[in-house]
């Protein structure tokens, strides 16, 4: 009984003169965790912004639960509120997402815009801060947070609305290993909870933990798709799309050579 | 130039809050219409930029450094209305949070720098740059002059506000209650620092940034140059086309000392002998609100003061000479005239934009 959350058909999008998406097509079923894999500039972040109704396709069709996502559709306040409530996006740079003077204000921003009653807002914000173990940061200004804390506050500000669809842009980028681990654990725990999660990443280590299905991007198009294990085995594909790297390193035998590899077991 | 609390009387402060208020209101209204929901992030982030740029120590010719206000570059990139608000917000945070500039004097600081500075910078930039191409050198020159002149206008307004305090506000024993120096001291003292240092810092920042934007982000210069051609057209940007503008420029340059003359020489009270007096000279240096007063050249000053004072007493209406309200009248008149020109220029340009 899987329904389609997102349908993308032959979508094109350009920034001034650079083509970011060039005939992209894919489908995201409900309740599935999907990874968009690709090197920087392959168009996956742009696609996330289109999926969140922040940018609009120049040509092609984009549907959310059967509804076309167009600028005109978002003029309708009740549609817009409903969509914002159901779909949350985590930006790659948390400084963009934390624009309020304190952590509490930050997390309360979304509910306030959707005009929840004040009592409800206080209760929900308190609950989500507790759940993410950041209640002690409540009154902190954003510039007094570490990178990992900023990320967690950004997530709290998204999760406070309890969205059923999450769009994550490079959620582990620029985090220390411990925070990276916590982030991956959180996304892993969302498996089979009914949440739809779309993660844009070029980090192959964690793909199997955070995704049930993958799309590989290159130059604004979907080049391949499949389960994480299928994709990870296709070394030729990963190499071509810049997801694998080679550098010289020493093996225990003392041999020094270079070949494409992932740091799976390092 | 950030006036602290205690330099201006509450009534002066209230008057300048009242003078700024309509500009804030009109700017907010216009921007809400033009930017809609983009208003909040754009203004916030740009006000933050202005604030940080005010902290830059700009290296100036002659090995000194000075602080710019950033009002001219804000007007060039955002237009005068957004600049009025962005600079006012930056000044508010400086005053309230960092204690730089007073809370009661905030209206005065906003009027001098944000309102008058933005409108003057925008008008000067638009008049001089005309419709030359985005990449033209004329835009760099226009930005530099806009920066230099607008900061000096702001300083002049501040000096006039200081200078009228001792006229109106003295205690029972005759001691001035607020800024103690009369116009004839306050104006030259303020202007010296700004004509030589702060104005140059602002000009360097504005001209330098416009040149930088031409190379790296020409699209950011579009907002205030709607009809400018994209590419460098040699014919349009050559000297012949500039000539009429140079006339306009020279008139502007004439107006600046004239403005100082009108209020500074204060109907001939100011004699070059003042400048021979070491005490007065030191006083002038001290009253300059700039952190790094430049070295004073008494001879040059003496000549300058002679130039400024020479023609004036003859024209001065005698009934104003004694009346203290004459100072206020002339200052208000001068400031109003400059603002009127600025607003008028904006009208003309926005009208043209609308029809074109």
């Amino acid at each position, binding site marked *: 009984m899987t329904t389609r959350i997102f349908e993308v058909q032959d979508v094109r999008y350009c920034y001034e003169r650079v083509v970011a998406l060039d005939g992209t097509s894919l489908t995201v079923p409900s309740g599935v965790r999907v990874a968009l894999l690709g090197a920087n500039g392959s168009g996956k972040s742009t696609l996330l912004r289109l999926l969140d109704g922040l940018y609009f396709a120049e040509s092609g069709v984009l549907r959310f639960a059967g509804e076309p996502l167009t600028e005109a559709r978002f003029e309708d306040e009740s549609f817009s509120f409903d969509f914002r409530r159901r779909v949350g996006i985590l930006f790659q740079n948390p400084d963009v997402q934390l624009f309020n003077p304190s952590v509490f204000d930050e997390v309360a921003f979304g509910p306030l*815009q959707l005009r929840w009653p004040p009592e409800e807002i206080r209760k929900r914000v308190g609950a989500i801060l507790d759940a993410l173990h950041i209640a002690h940061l409540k009154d902190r200004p954003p510039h007094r947070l570490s990178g990992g804390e900023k990320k967690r506050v950004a997530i709290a500000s998204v999760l406070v609305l309890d969205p059923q669809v999450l769009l994550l842009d490079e959620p582990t980028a620029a985090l220390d290993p411990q925070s990276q681990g916590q982030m991956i654990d959180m996304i892993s725990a969302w498996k089979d909870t009914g949440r739809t999660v779309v993660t844009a990443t070029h980090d192959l280590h964690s793909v199997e933990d955070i995704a049930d299905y993958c799309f590989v991007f290159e130059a604004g198009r979907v080049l391949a798709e499949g389960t994480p294990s299928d994709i990870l085995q296709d070394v030729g594909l990963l190499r071509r799309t810049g997801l694998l790297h080679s550098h010289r390193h020493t093996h225990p035998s003392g041999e020094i050579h270079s070949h494409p590899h992932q740091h799976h077991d390092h | 130039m950030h006036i602290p609390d205690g330099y201006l009387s*509450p009534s002066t402060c209230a008057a300048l809050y009242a003078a700024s208020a309509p500009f804030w209101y009109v700017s907010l209204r216009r921007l809400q219409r033009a930017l809609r929901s983009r208003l909040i*992030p754009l203004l916030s982030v740009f006000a933050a930029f202005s604030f940080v740029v005010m902290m830059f120590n700009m290296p100036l010719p002659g090995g000194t450094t000075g602080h710019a206000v950033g009002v001219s570059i804000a007007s060039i990139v955002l237009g005068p209305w957004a600049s009025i608000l962005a600079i006012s917000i930056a000044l508010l945070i400086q005053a309230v949070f960092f204690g730089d500039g007073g809370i009661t004097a905030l209206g005065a600081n906003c009027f001098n720098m944000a309102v008058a500075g933005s409108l003057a910078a925008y008008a000067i930039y638009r008049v001089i740059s005309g419709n030359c191409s985005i990449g033209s050198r004329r835009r760099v020159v226009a930005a530099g002059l806009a920066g230099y002149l607008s900061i000096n206008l702001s300083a002049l307004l501040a000096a006039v506000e200081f200078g009228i305090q001792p006229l109106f506000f003295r205690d029972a024993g005759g001691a001035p209650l607020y800024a103690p120096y009369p116009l004839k001291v306050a104006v030259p003292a303020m202007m010296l620092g700004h004509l030589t240092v702060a104005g140059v810092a602002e000009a360097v920042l504005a001209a330098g940034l416009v040149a*930088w934007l031409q190379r790296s982000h020409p699209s950011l210069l579009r907002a205030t140059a709607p009809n400018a051609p994209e590419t460098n057209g040699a014919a349009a940007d050559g000297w012949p086309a500039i000539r009429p503008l140079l006339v306009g420029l020279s008139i502007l340059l004439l107006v600046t000392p004239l403005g100082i003359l009108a209020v500074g020489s204060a109907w001939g009270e100011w004699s070059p002998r003042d400048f021979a007096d070491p005490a007065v000279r030191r006083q002038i240096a001290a009253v300059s609100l700039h952190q790094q007063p430049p070295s004073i050249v008494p001879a040059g000053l003496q000549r300058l003061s002679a130039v400024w004072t020479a023609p004036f007493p003859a024209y001065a209406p005698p009934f104003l000479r004694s009346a203290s309200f004459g100072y206020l009248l002339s200052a208000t008149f001068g400031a109003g005239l400059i603002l009127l020109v600025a607003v008028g220029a904006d009208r003309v340009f926005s009208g043209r934009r609308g029809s074109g």
Partner: protein
Amino acid sequence: MGSHGFLEGSIQGFLRALEHALESEELARRNGLLQSLDPRVKLIGTLGLVLAATTSRRLAVIAALFALACLLAACSRVPLRTLMFRTWAGALTFTGVIALPAVFLTPGPLFWRLPLLGFPVTLTGLRTAAYLVSRVETAATLSMLLVLCTPWSHVLKALRVLRVPVVLVVILGMTYRYILLMIAAAREMFESRRSRTVGRLDAGQRRRMAVSAAGVLLSRTMQLSGDVYLAMQARGFRGDVYVLDEFRMDGRNWVWLALLIALGGAAVWAGRS
């Protein structure tokens, strides 16, 4: 001024601002008198006292207000050292230099003649200088106390009682947040330039360096404002903003509000000439 003076000068300025922000947050969390009051009470109270300090025509009244400010500081656990370095020293050197010539130049009854130089010191001149310096110090101390004892986000929300529009309250909060982000970015830029710069730079190079730093900051500014706009939209922002009013006035706050207003009113009354 050395060839790196402008880098040094700017970096020092950035560090001072960051330190100031840090210290205010620290003090605002302390357990003191002003910290325990409703931000709106503090805002109206301090504004009233600042106004009284600027209106007064009697030195004694300004001095009393200054003493009151010091008392409030002591009850709020604001160290005198902080006030001294943050406010008094700066205001004194700045305004002191400006007020000093007035001591000699204001006409009035001769009080004393400076030895050697022979400058006349007049009583009127002394009073003039005292007015300026005491007023500046008192107003600066009072307004600094408000900021040192109140988290910035609370100061902003308190502005709502003065009928400041919500849009402006939100903009001020966001501006402050991005000021600190950009100061950090600018500091990084200047420090990396300092470490890469060996030998003397000529004036033109220094100027280009400063201008390009400002340019990089400006282009980041435009990028940031676009991205922040998207992030706001993504959470339901449609142009009208809403803020949560968190403050509760209790009896104690009403008493303090009345007390501060009464003190301000008394000072205004006593300060008439």
